[in-house]
């Protein structure tokens, strides 16, 4: 292994909330069983309103979009009810998820001025905003004053730092669907540079409204109504019959620390963050780039001092998009990763958009801990059958070195290598 000039960086705590469960125990159990919650989305503000005729009678049923929604969120008692009153759904889920990660990493033991927080994602409270706009249209004078601060994504920074007493820095970063991984990279740099001793990276829950659903669908990114009568079959990354991503609500929180700052008697780190990379395609559009993906993988492996043969598991971006899935598998092949085990976390939990990169990194850590790889749902006819897929049943496997990939609209490519420690 080549010597490195930077300190070892580890994940010291995690928190996760998704449609398949809140907390790492429930999440792991559901993930390994391939238990899903895909259905017609029912959260208010996610159905296109009924078109009406001249007499005000609905002309056709409301447009329904498929996805996986969180049934309920258990809030920690330590977060005051008055703080929760004006917290958006994204913010509430972030607070609950951060609570788990905070205690997992035992952050109470760290000087609050040496703790930083970064929120990954942008424009992630859209459904909440649409609901406010609809409620106060034509009576704007009565808009609640709190809207003036809560509409900003950075409100999450204020809420989380107040609720947990964080006194380092806090800000948001965006990288479209790669935001969850971009925020982890940013947190690594904050810890590596010595800016803080512990940095919390939140992959925020992207709370989309029917406007974003319609936009994604029109763009051809979100799955069509092909599986409207069979929601369980709609989310099928890497399968021949896929036709777009299926949304899934989720939030992931990762605590990053230098290995030498973690008290090993108190905490057993989940994994070493061995290498990482981010590169842009120089392309504003949603189309993927083979060169961009290969570049990110190659750079992350190089930074980790690993070769492709060292990687025994890949957690791909795998959204179920027509071109994205093909390009990603080609990149995996071109990088010499054909041998590595491969599954699709989004097939179980859906696409969390801004949260995806963080939640999928957590999925790797939990599989590493369990010694099992979760199944890939609906992978009936893989577009690349020769790869080492985990199909419809979990398989035992002890991950030593894993690779996690994320991509985002606008030409974002990120890759992270994790090593068991």
């Amino acid at each position, binding site marked *: 292994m080549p010597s490195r000039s930077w300190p070892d960086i580890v994940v010291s705590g995690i928190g996760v909330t998704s449609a398949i469960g809140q907390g790492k125990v429930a999440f792991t159990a559901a993930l390994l069983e391939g238990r899903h919650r895909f259905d017609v989305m029912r959260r208010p503000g996610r159905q296109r309103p009924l078109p009406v005729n001249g007499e005000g009678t609905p002309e056709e049923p409301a447009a329904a979009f498929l996805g996986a929604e969180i049934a309920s969120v258990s809030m920690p008692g330590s977060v*005051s*009810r*008055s703080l929760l*009153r*004006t917290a958006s759904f994204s913010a509430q889920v972030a607070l609950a998820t951060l609570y788990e990660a905070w205690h997992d990493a035992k952050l109470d033991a760290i000087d609050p001025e040496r703790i930083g927080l970064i929120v990954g994602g942008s424009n992630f409270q859209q459904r909440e905003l649409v609901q406010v706009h609809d409620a106060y249209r034509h*009576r704007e*004078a*009565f*808009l*609640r*004053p*709190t809207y003036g*601060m809560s509409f900003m994504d950075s409100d999450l920074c204020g809420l989380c730092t107040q609720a947990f007493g964080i006194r380092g820095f806090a800000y948001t970063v965006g990288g479209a669907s790669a935001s969850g991984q971009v925020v982890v990279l940013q947190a690594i740099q904050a810890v590596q540079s010595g800016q803080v001793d512990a940095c919390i990276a939140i992959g925020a829950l992207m709370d989309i409204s029917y406007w974003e659903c319609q936009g994604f669908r029109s763009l051809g990114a979100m799955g069509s109504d092909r599986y409207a009568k069979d929601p369980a079959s709609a989310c099928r990354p890497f399968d021949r019959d896929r036709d777009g991503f299926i949304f899934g609500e989720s939030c992931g929180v990762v605590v990053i620390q230098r290995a030498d700052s973690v008290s090993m008697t108190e905490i057993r780190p989940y994994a070493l963050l061995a290498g990482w990379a981010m590169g842009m395609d120089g392309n504003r559009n949603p189309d993927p780039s083979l060169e961009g993906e290969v570049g990110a993988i190659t750079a992350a492996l190089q930074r980790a001092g690993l070769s492709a043969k060292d990687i025994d598991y890949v957690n791909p971006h795998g959204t179920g998009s027509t071109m994205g899935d093909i390009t990603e598998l080609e990149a995996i092949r071109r990088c010499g990763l054909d041998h590595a085990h491969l599954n699709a976390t989004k097939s179980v939990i859906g696409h969390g958009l801004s949260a995806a990169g963080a939640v999928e990194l957590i999925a790797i850590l939990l599989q590493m801990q369990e010694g099992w790889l979760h199944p890939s749902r609906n992978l009936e006819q893989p577009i690349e059958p020769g790869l080492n897929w985990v199909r419809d049943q979990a398989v035992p496997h002890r991950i030593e070195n894993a690779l996690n990939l994320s991509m985002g609209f606008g030409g974002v490519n990120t890759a992270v290598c994790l090593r068991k420690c």
Partner: protein
Amino acid sequence: MSETKVSKEEILEIIVRHTREVVPELEAHEFRPDDSLKALGANSVDRADIIMMTLESLVLNIPLVAMAKAENISELAEIIHAKS
């Protein structure tokens, strides 16, 4: 505003109802007319929300700045009543 003017006492009740909603910790508090929202723990944003929710309930569009001088909920109800 409706044709029948709402009484100051009714406005006070509306203020108390919204205060309990905005500051849930005051659910069991026995409100008195000389209670100050600030002293009860409502911060400036909470107070602005409470006043706006009260005005919304009364369908009364008056600038929030007009309420700035109120020292307690009774004075607040009085100002709103005078402008209704």
